[in-house]
């Protein structure tokens, strides 16, 4: 039974890390700019498609038609040769193999530009407007982004293989000195867990230990006073929006081997990340992380057959049930501050 509970807990941590990472950017934007960004899921999706695009570029092929041979469906046979391998040899093959993590290189600048353009182009005009209008405009942006991606990449999921070295499962039980093959867990999920930890830690460190982060935190606490000190807080907040977009984007990139991305993937995560932010407390970074892990672990345990036998269907409602209970007991969420969204 220990193995079962341990594995489920590990799965909860893994899920929680993903939820926390996705919710982090959402709460970052709310905490700094006061905007409820319903386009955050779309930023996750755009990041995932950066990985798709990168792989498509790396796997470009030259196609020659061989009229002497026919395919079984009666078409002249297409002979394909990979271009990147032809150019770069073994290095090209390694690059294709590691296309998902390597695509982070292009994802960071793309998402930074997308985030800053979004904030400067549209969202800044809605700072003083009611939250309902912010939700509407960002939700509209999300739909536009979805449709653009759909028109370029089609409606179907596009599988993104993980590097061959990171496929399969790690024998965690053996690492811990237990019997082999009792506690095994997919390597890529462990990689994602570590990756999420590094990104979350980096964001916290950035805000905590840099001058830029200190100014941003001061701006989050009292925007007007920071402005009166002659600091251009708006510019810093714009950069924070860009940073949130980057966090969402890289979260999307690394998730692609676990879930082949399609244009709708962001919406699937939006509701979930919004619940995480609300449960954690609007605008609270530690709250988002704590709520992400809490909901991930609860969801994982609720999916156990023993639990489902007691309460059928609990796995499908646990997140929302917990959200209701927490908000009834703690209306501001786990780490919510007084005055946020209470005006």
């Amino acid at each position, binding site marked *: 039974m220990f193995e079962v509970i341990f594995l489920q807990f590990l*799965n909860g941590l893994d899920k929680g890390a993903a939820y926390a990472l996705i919710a982090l950017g959402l709460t970052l934007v709310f905490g700094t700019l006061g905007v409820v960004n319903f386009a955050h899921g779309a930023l996750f999706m755009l990041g995932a498609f950066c990985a798709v695009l990168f792989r498509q570029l790396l796997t470009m092929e030259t196609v020659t038609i061989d009229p002497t041979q026919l395919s079984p469906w*009666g078409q002249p046979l297409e002979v394909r040769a990979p271009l990147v391998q032809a150019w770069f040899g073994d290095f090209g093959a390694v690059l294709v193999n590691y296309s998902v993590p390597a695509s982070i290189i292009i994802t960071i600048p793309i998402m930074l530009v997308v985030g800053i353009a979004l904030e400067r182009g549209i969202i800044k005009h809605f700072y003083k407007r009611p939250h309902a209008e912010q939700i509407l405009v960002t939700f509209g942006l999300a739909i536009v982004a979805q449709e653009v991606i759909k028109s370029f990449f089609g409606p179907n999921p596009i599988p993104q293989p993980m590097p061959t070295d990171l496929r399969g499962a790690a024998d965690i039980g053996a690492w811990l000195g237990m019997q082999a093959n009792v506690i095994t867990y997919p390597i890529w999920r462990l990689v994602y867990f570590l990756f999420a930890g590094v990104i979350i830690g980096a964001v916290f460190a950035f805000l905590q230990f840099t001058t830029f982060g200190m100014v941003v935190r001061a701006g989050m606490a009292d925007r007007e006073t920071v402005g009166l000190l002659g600091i251009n807080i708006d510019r810093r907040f714009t950069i924070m929006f860009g940073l949130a977009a980057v966090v969402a984007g890289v979260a999307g990139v690394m998730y692609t081997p676990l879930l*082949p991305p399609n244009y709708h993937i962001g919406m699937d995560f939006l509701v979930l990340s919004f619940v995480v932010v609300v449960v954690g407390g609007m605008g609270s970074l530690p709250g988002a992380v704590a709520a992400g892990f809490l909901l991930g672990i609860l969801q994982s345990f609720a999916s156990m057959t023993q639990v489902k036998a007691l309460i059928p269907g609990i796995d499908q409602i646990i997140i929302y049930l917990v959200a209701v209970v927490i908000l009834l007991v703690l209306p501001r969420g786990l780490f919510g501050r007084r005055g946020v969204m209470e005006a």
Partner: protein
Amino acid sequence: MTLLKRGLSRRRVLQTGMAGIIGTGIAPMVFTKGAWAQEFCNNPTGDTVTIGLNLPLTGAYAEEGADEQKAYELAIAHLNGEGDGGLISVLTPTALTGKGILGKKVAFVTSDSQTKSDVARAGATRMIERDGAIMITGGSSSGEAIAVQGLCQELGVIFMAGLTHSNDTTGKDKRRYGFRHFFNAYQSGIGLGPILGQEYGTDRRAYHLTADYTWGWTQEESMKAATEALGWQTAEAVRTPLGAADFSQYLTPVLNSGADVLILNHYGNDMVNSLTQAIQFGMRDREANGKTFEIVVPLFSELMAKGAGENIKGIFGTSNWHWNLQDPGSIAFTKSFGAAYGSPPSQAAHTAYVQTLLYADAVERAGTFYPPEVIKALEGHEFDGMGNGRTLYRAEDHQCMKSILVVRGNENPTSEYDVLNVVQEVDREATTYDPAIFGGDLGPAEPVPLCA
């Protein structure tokens, strides 16, 4: 008395009266013989007849929907005398002429069902009431098929189901206006059971992950029956939400459940995701109970197999049809589809194409679009040449009785489409079952409701 005096006898008056009664009462019945032809939903009056394609172009079964759409458009082109004619020349017997249906050019309207039953029903309603569709076809989910055929029964419009595999579609939820060419979960169990026994032995413990809707339930039930008949035990049967995306929390309990076989009662994107994630959990590299851990996918699709990549290699499942079959019908369809779209057709495309031709053929044989007559033409109709051998559209439940395929993921594919190998063709006699076992009531064909 005056009239009688002018030569009109009492007898003459009675004769005239009778003639009047006959003239006004009986004659309309004679002259309006066939007038029912004017009194049914969307009776086509112009030069064209419109078919409604209700397709999951987005959602969990979007790939199937896209391929179905190609097949429908190809079938309609062939019915209108365009292209190479496809299976029209291979279907026997046939009343098809290649000049539309009853001389009317076939047109179509489409609706994206989003792989959701309520959206599918709303789309079908719109196509019937607004666009004047005479027949509705499509769908890649049994939830959609059951919802839409219920609607079609209410509106008096024939529904030729696309890919739907639940026993309920032609079982407890069967409808007089609904017809299914595709095979069902029970037939998958009949076909797959013996092969699983032969390959994996009779001492196995199976763990089911099941899509939580009508198809998944009946698939699980059928596979349990088939495997338990072999002597296998069922360790657990766990329901998962349709479109769950991340199945990891359902896969972790499998590892220490004592099971040595995982049966994935999932289809479409769910199948791709759950299978891919199961492989990531190292399930195919495991041993349990001293045996190699195995994964079984009772309902395969080559589109799905393509999406799952090399994860599908060596895995057993069943299929309604496969493009590399070598009968004249399969060869003709694969060639025709390949010429039009540059890739071989999926089983979803095949069933969609065949259903369109069968409807058109039934209308031609009935000589009318009047649904009860078309239904009569389809019920008990036996045909050949469509890729599944001699096939019977059984009158009792509107389920096609034909051969089905046991397939296995290809270990050495020669192309991205060469993902499945046909292991065995299970003949019609073996897959035929008593329609009474699933109950249900077809309901009446008449009186025909008017849709608007």
